[in-house]
């Protein structure tokens, strides 16, 4: 039994970097994202008997994190609506977390998506899950995930095109340098 326990802990540790990236992409703030990751670790630890070693730990943790986020959002629903302006303001104070203006713009665009579209495009486009796995994590049909991802892409394009006209991002000369630093 102790070896299984160690294996569980080891797999959980290995999945933590992507779990944090998922939380951060969903929420946009390090402090709240890490609080959510902590809640997820506690929940997962308590439920570890439900996890079969050798199955997909990452997908399992993502599911727990997602459910935890939505149950917290339901509890705080009114709070979040009331502080809409405040929320946007705090986002505006955090962008130095992303080195380039380009990514700050993208972060803001991502935050404007409805939550279901945001999580769909993150799971499929960044976390490396298949549409099927993403549908399992979100507890919805495959077709639903596909259409959410498509709508998310369209919406992001619209938002970013509008922003592009403001001439706010890096110019043509610096764009390759700033984006390269994050891609490589």
């Amino acid at each position: 039994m102790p070896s299984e326990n160690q294996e569980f802990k080891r797999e959980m540790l290995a999945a933590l970097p992507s779990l944090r990236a998922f939380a951060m992409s969903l929420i946009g703030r390090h402090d709240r994202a890490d609080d959510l990751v902590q809640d997820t670790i506690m929940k997962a630890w308590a439920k570890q008997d439900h996890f079969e070693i050798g199955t997909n730990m990452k997908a399992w943790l993502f599911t727990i994190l997602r459910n935890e986020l939505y149950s917290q959002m339901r509890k705080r629903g009114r709070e979040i609506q009331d502080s809409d302006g405040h929320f946007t303001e705090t986002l505006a104070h955090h962008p130095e977390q992303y080195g380039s203006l380009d990514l700050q713009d993208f972060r803001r665009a991502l935050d404007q998506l409805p939550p279901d579209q945001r999580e769909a495009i993150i799971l499929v486009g960044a976390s490396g899950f298949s549409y099927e796995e993403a549908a399992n994590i979100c507890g919805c049909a495959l077709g639903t995930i596909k259409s959410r991802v498509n709508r998310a892409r369209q919406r992001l394009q619209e938002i970013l095109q509008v922003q592009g006209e403001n001439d706010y991002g890096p110019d043509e000369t610096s764009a390759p340098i700033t984006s390269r630093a994050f891609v490589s």
Partner: protein
Amino acid sequence: MSSVFVSTRKRPAEKKVPRWNISFFSCVMVQANSQGDDCKMRYNSGAGRPIGTNASTGDPNAQIAAKLKALYQSVQEEAIPARFLDLLEMLDAAEQHSTLQSQSVLQGRE
């Protein structure tokens, strides 16, 4: 450790990300050369189109995909904060403690 889960799966509906580094550096070489002597590398470098061409005319979906991944990876590549390592140690220790306790209780009954 952070790279364990990166890009092992197939990602559907995604176009290739433009390779900035190649076109950017060859453009720099062309510019540097054209300031000095006659440029030997100008034509065999294969570059010469304006910097940023890929960004402005490239598939917008590919750009969105690249930015989303860049954002995600910037967090994924951070070291795991100590608070989580400590938390796991604590949970582990608490569990071992309770296991030992329940074992000694059972042994005591025998």
